[in-house]
């Protein structure tokens, strides 16, 4: 979690890192603004027609092809037990890479890259259930408050819930 420790001896890179704004990729969903580390996002796409996954949890509404790859769609809303993000022809999704996993995160709207001053980043106020479980920080920019998600952990959780036994090695 990015923290700004009071430093007296600022030097080199550390100084640059500390002063710089942090870049996040911001989505609108669940009636709020959610963001995660920008480098995790490879591109934003308009969702093609989905094919529903058999025996899959509701937070995986289906798969689609993108550049010859078959990608699952992840609905964070359903994962955290809130309402589903409605999927329409205009729905856009952010393709994210978290470790070995590659999924398309759907949203109500894509805001894109936002820079958030590091000093505004605060630890999440609570770790209650729902989406708060996956918060890593709360930040603020000119447009308002942004909830920063720990996306790798969230995707990992989704995978663990979707394929309980860790899946066959096949």
């Amino acid at each position, binding site marked *: 979690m990015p923290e700004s420790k009071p430093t007296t001896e600022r030097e080199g890179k550390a100084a640059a890192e500390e002063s710089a704004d942090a870049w996040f990729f911001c989505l609108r969903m669940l009636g709020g603004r959610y963001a995660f580390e920008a480098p995790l996002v490879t591109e934003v796409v308009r969702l*093609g*027609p989905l*094919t*529903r*996954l*058999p*025996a*899959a*949890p*509701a937070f995986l509404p*289906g*798969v*689609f*092809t993108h550049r*010859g*790859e*078959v*990608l*699952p769609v992840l609905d964070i809303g*359903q994962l955290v*037990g*809130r*309402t*589903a993000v409605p999927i329409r022809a205009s729905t856009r999704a952010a393709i994210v890479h978290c470790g*070995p*996993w*590659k*999924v398309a995160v759907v949203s109500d709207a894509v805001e894109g890259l936002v820079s958030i001053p590091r000093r505004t980043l605060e630890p999440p106020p609570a770790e209650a259930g729902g989406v708060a479980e996956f918060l890593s920080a709360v930040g603020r920019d000119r447009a308002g408050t942004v909830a920063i998600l720990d996306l790798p952990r969230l*995707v990992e959780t989704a*995978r663990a819930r*979707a*394929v309980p*036994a*860790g*899946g*066959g*090695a*096949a």
Partner: protein
Amino acid sequence: MGISEEIRQKLLPRFRETTADRVEKISGALLEVERGAATAELREELARELHTLKGEARMMGFVGISTVVHAAEDLLKGLGGERPGEAVDALLRACDAIVPMLDAPVDGGDAARTLAERLRALLATTPSAPGAAAGASPAPPAVPAASAAPTVPTAVPAAPAAPASKAEPPAQPSSGSKAVSPGAHHDEAAPRAELHGDRPAGSIRVDVDRLDEIGALAGDMLVEGARAIRRSKELNAIFARWERLSDRVIALAERVADVRSARLVEQIEGDVHLLRSDTFRFARIQTEAASTAHAQLEVLTERIGTARLIPLSGVLAGFPRAVRDMAREQGKEAECVVKGAETGVDKAILLSLNDPLVHLVRNCVDHGVEAPADRVAAGKPRAGRVVISAHADGDQLAVTVEDDGRGVDPAAVRKAALRKGIIGEQQAASLSARAALELLFLPGFSTREQAGETSGRGVGLDVVRKKVTGLGGSVTVDSDPGRGTRFTLRMPQSLSLMKVLLVRIDDDVYGLPAMDVESVGRLDPKDTTEVAGIRAVRYRGRLMPVVALGPLLSLNGGPRAHRPMVAYINHGAEGAAVVVDGLSGEREVAVKAPGQFLKGMRFVTGAAALEDGRVALLLSTPDLVSAARRLATPLVSRGQDRRRLRILLVDDSAIAREAEAALLRSLGHEVDEAVDGEDGWQKLQGGQYHLLVTDVQMPVLDGIDLTRRVKSTPRFVRLPIVIMSSLSAPEERRRGVDAGADAYMVKGELEAESVAATLERLCGVAG
């Protein structure tokens, strides 16, 4: 080793190529040995390579080569650890001789004899106790070795002469030089390496991964080609609209009275006409080009698919020897015959096929083949026979492993399974002989009490089945007690292209492996029967459970047609009649992995891109069949200790109702059905129920209103209500709970376990 001349000719080019590679590898390893830098693994690998080379050469009829290699093997075995010295040199020399021998008469002529003799002579002189004498003097023993070989004093020419050995390496009677100083080997290493550089290249080797990549691209291109055809159809439709335009212009021309305007309209008419014929011509050419391109891409994809198949011999070659050795260890005699080793198979399958085959073959030797005395007593030849045969069947690979041993006695299997608690008494009594054999594939099963030396070490037939089904294949067993057992493995020959039957659920398309689809048709309700709560249809003399694919996959939808489309699928001895919303035909698709994130998900084995941009998910037949059976089979052993409930089930979708009723019945409960809320309400008045299970969205009276009505009626206030809905959103749940439901279950998540748990929670377990 009997392979036909035809096959031999077919295999010959590949044999030459692999032999050259093998020899190169062996030479490399020998050099390491010489340097004293060979690790234990390398030595093992060396031994293995030699062994394989010998086997292959013998199979291909190159007796000369196999004799030489055999001698080399022996020499290598006796080789001391520290100073292999001259022996290695002789071995390397033998290596050089092998490749040219491929073009010589198969017996290798004098050259082969000479080489073999020389190697054997060296063996005689190599100190059997390595280490002790090794340091002393490896060179002097070479002298007797040389004299032992009559034609060639020692086959070691002076180092500079090495390149000449390419021409006629085994026959080097000229050189008279004797003992070799160790240093000379190193000098020779370099020119020797060049020896293999200029062999004629009739084929080149391509990394399989790269070929896979090319194959995948070709598959994608094929889809693109199909899209192009679609586009040109659309183009034709657009151009067809010219016709209307030109008709209107003609109509206009007739009405125009003004001469100058009429001329203009006439010109327009002419233009439109020209444009129309030009666009038609273009459209025709374009359509032709698109379909030609598509057809060529089809061929390309198919060729690449074939090119990436690897012959099974790589896996099978070692079996004959292994069987012999295994049998000896157990005081048995057995021979192994391999047929169809030239059959090609996908690399991924080849790699995964080894373990199951090893296990099955071990199984034959261990459990199947009897001791020689017993065999003779039974009127069989002393030596048992294990036959591994492979053949391609369409785009399928079939491999059978059979022995002529004692066979499997279904009664013994049944007894053993009962003793091990794998099945219950009732089940044991009702099992057919065929079903009893299927028990062999259950985890924790082995007909012998003691795990055998050879097989049965933790790995069982269940693992074999798991592996093979993981490849999209199946394993079945037939046995004729007293006469033998046959295991049959079937799997796709290639993983990259697969024939599938595309089926529809709602608007989504799924693929069933065409090899597992026995037939398709319409299901007439009057052909189905209900047996102990299981809906089944008699198909080709067999009762198959009828399940709707949508509910089975926990997806919405489900055909409402009176006579819905059905696909009869088979997996091994089991099958199911799968009801779908529609069929979209059979075709060959390029299979894509469904992505890392979805790896290991139930039912899904792969995906294929369709021309319209959709993805068709390819379904696993084993998963489907086992799920269908689970949904339809009463869980006898479980039902006993649970209370039998009378349940009223309300759902307007006949198929969903059937699936749910089957599930509830499988838990040992009695189920009455109602087709909507109002019907449910009526039935509730007339019957005594322990539980009400209702869908939400229904005509006449929906589930929420039904729940409210029931809960507000004093008589039913204590009747537990479970809402089963396809709506999973939290506010839907809340709506249900607010109305008074005691539990809310999402149809997509219906598992026997969780349903049973919910019912227990609501109604208690004890009767």
